[in-house]
């Protein structure tokens, strides 16, 4: 038990520390690297909770894909750090307001469990799994069997968003020369070479 609580404190301290560093690091690339560290340690917390599937998915999706794109963009952009810092005080009230609202909501959620213990049963309702199913199976059953329509609706929303993003950003550039591989492969000798008999002294 001592080991797991030690691991818990280790993971949670590193998570909090790196989350603070994300917003306070001077260099944006360092911020993204700290964000990755935060993701990684939250995955460790998931493992401690026994949610190994979620932990792995967190690493695969957020660290392996999303953060790579972040890093990609941050490295490519030429950001002026001094300019970025200038508006800090100006935006501070808005940021603080958002933070306070989030904090209040979290307090309300956890507070309601303490004040009214029966409300906790709402969260952990109905579907009870026997303990020998792995949480991969449990999640699969939940998403693909019990909530299949909601899942499909969410998928459709994402599809629409994706198509929207493509439509907004794509532009045809007729001047760019592109390789058409099927056309290239389909080329026959007769199409490109013409053999002529040239009589000497006259030319074509």
């Amino acid at each position, binding site marked *: 038990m001592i080991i797991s609580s030690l691991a818990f404190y280790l993971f949670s301290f590193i998570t909090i520390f790196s989350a603070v560093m994300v917003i306070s690091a001077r260099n944006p690339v360092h911020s993204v690297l700290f964000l990755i560290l935060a993701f990684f340690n939250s995955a460790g917390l998931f493992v401690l909770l026994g949610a190994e*599937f979620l932990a792995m998915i967190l*690493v695969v999706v957020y*660290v*392996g*894909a999303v953060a*790579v794109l972040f*890093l990609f963009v941050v*490295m490519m952009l030429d950001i002026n750090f001094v300019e970025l810092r200038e508006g800090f005080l100006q935006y501070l009230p808005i940021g603080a307001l958002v933070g306070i609202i989030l904090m209040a909501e979290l307090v309300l959620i956890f507070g309601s469990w303490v004040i009214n213990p029966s409300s906790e049963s709402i969260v952990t309702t109905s579907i009870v799994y026997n303990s020998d199913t*792995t949480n991969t199976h449990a999640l699969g059953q939940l998403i693909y069997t019990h909530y299949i329509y909601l899942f499909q609706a969410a998928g459709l929303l994402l599809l629409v968003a994706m198509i929207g993003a493509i439509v907004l950003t794509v532009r045809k550039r007729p001047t760019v020369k592109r390789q058409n591989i099927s056309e290239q492969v389909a080329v026959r000798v007769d199409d490109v070479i013409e053999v002529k008999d040239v009589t000497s002294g006259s030319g074509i």
Partner: protein
Amino acid sequence: MLEIWTDYAWPLIWIIIKILLIVIPLLIAVAYLTYAERKVIGSIQLRMGPNVVGPFGLLQPFADGLKLLVKESIIPTGSNRVVFILAPMLTFTLGLIGWAVIPVADGWVLSDINVGILYLFAVSSLGVYGIIMAGWASNSIYPFLGALRSAAQMVSYEVSIGFVIVTVLLAVGSLNMTDIVLAQQKVWFFIPLFPMFVIFFISGLAETNRAPFDLPEAEAELVSGYNVEYSAMSFALFFLGEYANMILVSAMTVILFLGGWLPPFDFTFLYWIPGVIWFSLKVSLVLFVFLWVRATLPRYRYDQLMRLGWKVFLPFSLFWVVVTAGAIVAFEWYPK
């Protein structure tokens, strides 16, 4: 006092012994993979390969290692020190930690976790960070271009690797590595899932930045890509990590498609040979194909590489996931 020994100290020591039992053979395998690469490519190109240090040049990898160890480490002034030093260490570590879930024989595995294959997928998807951090921290043009290429390449091919893993999982019904191997007792998965096997192997080449997809370190255009600014041991760590990754991807291929530690035919006398030998033989075979491909094929052009990943492999593997799932439902081949 005794409690501390039996509950904490001894398990810790036991785990460390097991880790060493995995890591030391792995590092020796990495050393001899570099030797094998030079010998195999040498004989394909009608050359001798290394043959001076030791009998048949067998001590060549150690000579190379020693040379890199005693060289001076140079850290460019313009570089970002911490990230610059962290990058090769990260690459090397990620090449090793994947082995925690690889079963080399029945029950011979450090940690037999439920989501073994997802863990491996996660580790291999992290491999890109070593390269992208190295490229950025070097603060130099060629490494940066190499790093960007490699980031795009690895992210693209990971998607199709993910779908290939999904088809295998549909056939197995579990994410545990041991279960995946045991599900192949009747037939190895490379027979029913042959197209996926090919896609996995080619994506593995791209994921490990091997020829013909070694664009991140294309000598002709990028000098040497992301590791231009590295020297001595930090350079060696990149190379060790890259070769350890090659062995890891080969081991994944063997476990997913070539039946892991199982012998090729179901005869009793073949089971007398320990599983770890079958496993190593199969991994060596896959690694040989890696080297063979490098000696045979020319490098891809970058746009062709992206086209292959996104326009050929991704739709095809997605289609094959649907076909496999459909076949399993239609013929009721549900895994137990």
